[in-house]
């Protein structure tokens, strides 16, 4: 089962060690107020179906994979599997205004990036490519560092259901 994927775990932790999301959060706190977690299954790592013809492609560069580099702290259904992409919501949904952020390392260019995990809202749950990675995740009494909230229900676009989660690049991490 996916939660036995220790390779993914170890890789993800290595990324977490190389980054410093807490410090970043401090400086970006005002901008990212509302930094959101996502609904969650706690242990669904690497559960994504393989895209057609992917073969042995690098999963860290495939936005339909849990191992995709931007997904280092995501928790939810991947919008790249739901008609959207890592940065765009699927047709007919709305992107939540608030979100929570992570700092993820892109092995392709060797840089760290601030990633904003905006939820896409307004339709029933997508239900495809569930992914949960918990680097630096905190309990929900620290909301902006926890991936256990549904931010569709918590933003100005509140009151609309959760569909899937994006992983937008905000900026390179300094």
């Amino acid at each position, binding site marked *: 089962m996916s*939660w036995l994927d220790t390779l993914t*775990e170890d890789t993800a932790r290595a990324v977490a060690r190389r980054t410093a999301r807490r410090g970043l959060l401090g400086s970006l706190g005002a901008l990212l107020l509302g930094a959101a977690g996502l609904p969650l299954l706690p242990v*669904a790592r690497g559960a994504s179906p393989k895209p057609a013809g992917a073969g042995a492609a690098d999963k860290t560069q495939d936005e339909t994979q849990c191992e995709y580099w931007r997904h280092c702290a995501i928790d939810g259904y991947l919008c790249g599997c739901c008609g959207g992409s890592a940065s765009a919501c699927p047709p007919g949904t709305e992107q939540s205004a608030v979100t929570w952020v992570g700092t993820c390392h892109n092995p392709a260019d060797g840089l760290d990036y601030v990633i904003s995990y905006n939820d896409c809202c307004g339709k029933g749950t997508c239900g495809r490519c569930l992914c949960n990675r*918990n680097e630096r995740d905190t309990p*929900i*009494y*620290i909301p902006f560092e926890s991936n256990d*909230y*549904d931010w569709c229900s918590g933003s100005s676009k509140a009151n609309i259901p959760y569909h899937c989660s994006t992983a937008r690049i905000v900026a390179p991490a300094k």
Partner: protein
Amino acid sequence: MTALALAAFAAAAATPLPPDPQGQVATLPAPASPHWVWVNDFVFPHMTDGQAILVDGDSGRFLGVLYTGFGFSRENLSHDGRLIFSPETYFSRGTRGTRTDVVSLYDSVHLSAVGEIGIPPKRSANMPMMGDSELTDDGRFLLIYNFTPAQSVTVVDTASRSFASEIETPGCALEYPTGPRSFFSICSDGALLDVHLDDTGHAATRTRSVRVFDVPRDPATEKGVRRGSTWYFVSFGGTMYPVEITPKGLMPGKPWSLVSAAERAQKWRPGGLQQLAVHAGLNRLYSIMHQGGPETHKDPGKEVWVYDLATHRRIERITLAHPAASIQVSHDAQPLLFSAFIESSTLDVYDARSGRHLRSVENVGTTPTIMVTP
């Protein structure tokens, strides 16, 4: 005689079965068996379809189900056993439209809706936690966690069946009852917000404690369990942080560890979604354990370790039939231990004293989250 003739003879001699009356509907006995368990399910692939499923742990029988709307967390059982309170969210067009939040009231015998209480449409949609909704110790007020992302607690008066108040809890989450008119919330800096209510359900006092949890070093999970005047919160790394309810207020107790130095070196740690359970009569604490590194605090485990709360010594290691992220115990003198896993629909039942696996119940929900026992 031929076989056909024999069958015809037998049919002629037999008394036919009586016709079944039309319109029969099963009811549940009252009071509830202590060996029943409510398995809550937020049905993650279809979040508008939340369910609370009632199973008899003795027989493994599926007794009935409540349908509980979008982003469901848990139900709360009235202290007299007659009603089930369920904080729920609905949309006027199924998955869209105007949002309505209510506390639905269900009759415990018929599992039918018998009323509802309108509440502000602010109920937090988060990974289900027991602290999402709790009754005060006397059962009078129902407390519901709100997150918009402003944090507050909705107070519902179950006696008058009406919304009583909304208490702001800035920077603090969930509710942990501490008495007939009091609860606390956990704040992001590791302090506790100690809230006392008046008899109308409004906040009389709100006091912030000293920091109880070392959030930066080893945060305590929000998945606390209570025995009497003590709440138990375990950290990601396995350190138990008791919180004592005293006449002078909330006081941190002396921390203790679920794991020895050797076990820590072997990466044993607690994990899961509802990872702790307590049996008050036996004075035992149950914890799901697994071997893993940092950031595996939500992982399931294949063992439950059992501790004597008087001595803090481990008295049992239970090997589970299936990995579990959630456990609960019944409250009676011959307690059952229930275990479930959000990625499975199998409910396992054990003898909570011996750890013996009694039975597995299949097809219990879609993504079972947290369990409640009467």
